């Protein structure tokens, strides 16, 4: 009897040991894909790897063996190839667990069921999410659901080449006061036209290099629409808005810039490397770009005295109807729909940990982006970085974003088509607007408000 009971106990004990090992030794592979990323953006994926390490350690303390393998990929041809890759993988049921992508993808991808809301897994009132800037969190949500967590923040400033500005008559004090004047609406896009023309006429910069805009479609141009009083989304109904007057004024600004000889008619499509080289070393009087350009100007382009040579501000207002503004277009971490809930849960946990101020700061400083949490200003690496702290202070409070709307892609394409046609002189702004209006009416139908 005794032997049987001992045997029973031994069996039971080994069964328990076996069952615990079987239950807790968990191996899981989490794939992370980051769009629009180059070497300096490596922390978009490395942060997840660091998070995996922390999560495994947390679980080990609880007695669970969790082995997470992180697979990283960021080599996609460009944004469109990245988006195609993600959607096709999702259709085939092989979506990467975590994607770092544009917040504009949330609307279509959530509708398609490719992604799952991160709020299903994370407590939004807990650390570190409760420390993330509210406006950034809002950008990562759609239709009242928190789909993702902002991965970084950025903003798109207007730049002035200081030396050129002083040669056309601005004192050092004037140049220092420019950002405030821009913000107050005292220095407008009309002044940009005048000053850039001066720079060209005085031979300080070549013809066509007075004002040097972005050379391809992007969120940047919506800023100029806002500068002239345009509105992207009607807050009451959530519908997209085409303000014909503001759009015409904005097209006209680029047409005027070409006519004045300060912007090249065939500027669109300028090679990226050439573009950076031109703006970073004084070949251009004024231009607009992004906060992450800082890294490129001071790094690859070899500008060793950024603050001594370049002034930055909000995008100036166009007229009284609009005001100085900037758009932030943060990337967001999204988790994709997987066969098992467990993979989604772990992915969400990893994103949560990767959003820790200290970890996010690594990305912010390495890639010249802005932080996502308030506490980053208390982290030495962040606060001691002049660019990050000044850009955060000067730009981020005024930053708006493009709306997460299912049809925003079509809207932005049409806006760009019209701008391209007016800019290159193929159509007048009035003709272009007429076509944009017809096109948007046909595609968006009820989802568009025309003013």
């Amino acid at each position, binding site marked *: 009897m005794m032997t049987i009971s001992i045997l029973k106990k031994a069996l039971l004990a080994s069964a328990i040991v076996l069952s615990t090992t079987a239950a807790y030794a968990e191996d899981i592979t989490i794939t992370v894909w980051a769009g629009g990323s180059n070497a300096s953006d490596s922390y978009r994926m490395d942060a997840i790897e660091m998070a995996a390490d922390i999560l495994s350690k947390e679980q080990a303390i609880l007695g669970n063996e969790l082995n997470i393998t992180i697979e990283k990929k960021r080599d996609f041809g460009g944004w469109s190839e990245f988006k195609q890759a993600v959607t096709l993988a999702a259709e085939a049921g092989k979506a990467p667990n975590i994607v770092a992508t544009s917040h504009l993808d949330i609307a279509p991808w959530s509708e398609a069921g490719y992604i799952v809301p991160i709020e299903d897994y994370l407590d939004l009132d807990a650390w570190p999410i409760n420390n993330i800037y509210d406006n950034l969190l809002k950008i990562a949500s759609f239709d009242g659901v928190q789909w993702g967590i902002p991965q970084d923040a950025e903003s798109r400033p207007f730049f002035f080449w200081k030396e050129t500005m002083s040669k056309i008559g601005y004192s050092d004090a004037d140049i220092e006061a420019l950002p405030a004047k821009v913000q107050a609406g005292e220095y407008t896009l009309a002044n940009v036209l005048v000053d850039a023309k001066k720079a060209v006429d005085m031979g300080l910069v070549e013809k066509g290099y007075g004002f040097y805009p972005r050379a391809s479609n992007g969120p940047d141009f919506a800023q100029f629409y806002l500068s002239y009083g345009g509105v992207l989304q009607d807050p009451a109904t*959530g519908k997209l808005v085409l303000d014909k007057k503001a759009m015409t004024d904005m097209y006209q600004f680029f047409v005027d810039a070409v006519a004045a000889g300060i912007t090249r008619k065939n500027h669109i499509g300028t090679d990226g490397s050439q573009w950076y080289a031109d703006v970073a070393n004084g070949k251009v009087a004024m231009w607009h770009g992004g906060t992450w350009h800082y890294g490129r100007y001071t790094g690859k382009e070899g500008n060793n005295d950024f603050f001594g040579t370049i002034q930055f501000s909000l995008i100036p207002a166009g007229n009284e109807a609009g005001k100085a503004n900037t758009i932030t277009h943060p990337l967001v971490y999204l988790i994709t729909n997987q066969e098992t809930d467990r993979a989604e849960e772990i992915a969400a946990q990893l994103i949560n940990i990767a959003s820790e101020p200290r970890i996010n700061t690594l990305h912010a400083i390495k890639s010249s982006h802005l932080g996502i949490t308030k506490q980053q200003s208390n982290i030495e690496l962040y606060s001691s970085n002049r660019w990050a702290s000044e850009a955060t202070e000067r730009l981020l409070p005024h930053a708006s974003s493009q709306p997460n709307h299912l049809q925003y892609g079509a809207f932005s394409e049409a806006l760009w088509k019209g701008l391209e046609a007016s800019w290159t002189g193929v159509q007048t702004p009035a003709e272009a607007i007429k076509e944009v209006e017809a096109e948007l009416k046909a595609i968006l139908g009820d989802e568009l408000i025309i003013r």
Partner: protein
Amino acid sequence: MKNFNWLALGFLAPALIVITVFFLAPVILTGIFSFTSMSTSTGVTGGEYLLNQSGIRALADKGLNTATLDQLKNAGYVVDEKGLAALAERHGVATATEMRKLHENGQFSSRRDMERALKSLKANKIRSTKDRKAAAELFKHSLLNERFPTESKFRTAITEGGIPLEDHELIVTQAYTGWVWTVDNVKLLFSLPSTLRYAGNTLIYVTLTLMFNIGFGLFLAISTFYLPAKSASTFRAIWFLPRILPPVMYVLLWKWLTWDTGFIATTLSWIGVAPINWMLDTSTHAWVVVVLINGSFGASLGMILFSSAIKAIPSSILYASEVDGANRWQQVRYIILPHLRWPILFITSYQTLSLLTSFEHILLSTEGGPGRATEVWSLAAYHIALDNYGGNLQYGLGATFAVALVIIGIIASLFYLRFFNFNEMVAKPKIEG
């Protein structure tokens, strides 16, 4: 079946498979897609049922009555008996009792608020986020933001939610996230102002490039025919280069040639011409470059075919013509060109069809610019279906553009067959009849 040749089928099989997989299937699928509302947001493989704020807004626009709308919008989370009972079952009676004490009949519009209510439990804390989220679901009344895999499940849910039966149809249609059959793409195709422009651009592109292709191909074939054999093959080899270079490389060379910092601009600046971008300065520049890029690429094919066709002309005819005193021009006009009728037909129809659908050189060079001036139909189809900064790719509309191209291609082929009197040309030679 006795005469059925299995061996022949075996030999043909690889070709049949390739044709089916790479040609027939894409064409048929494109045809099918063109009558759907397929886009990134609908997905390709099917849909589910989901009501979100955008959906509610669309329902309001479609005239759903306000009472039902409010019902859908405001259901939210309610701390009711059913929920409390479920909570008691999962987390114990004490938890449920405390919850009742704190929030009985409490209504919360969002899940976050519901979770906050659960967090306010003091004596019976639900500590894990996961458990708290699951507990919040016990009080859920709202249908918003929940995905239902099938229509019947969704219908059951709205019935349980007390939505009047007469509104079900409208709500179910709106909630479906997948693609539906539709002819809207065709309507859109005819109503978009850009359609006409793309059609016009395509006409310019195909006509000019074709003229260049055939004309230049003929010129090369005939001129090299009269050259000594060795230099003739050198010339042909040079003109064959565009075809054997990788397209990206080939277009890059054109870019170096035409950019405002490129070869042409630099050379001309020596004689005082201000540098311009010779590819993108105006739409005329763009068209000239696009035609030259595609034309030089295409001319080599014509050159090879025409050259071999000329060589097939019995030399006795040419000698005889020289004896009769014909000059080179007369030889070309009366002997060579008539013999080249068949290869010219072939190249014309082949190139028309391939030009209609090829856009890679334009994509790599002007990308349709400046201001969409060189955006041809096939490039537009690509942009609509596969390239959109905002993320919502319009597969269905893009497919409709592509199908229109197939139809135009077929009409063009029929026209060529008739125009060149194809039947007569392939008729059996009378001499062997």
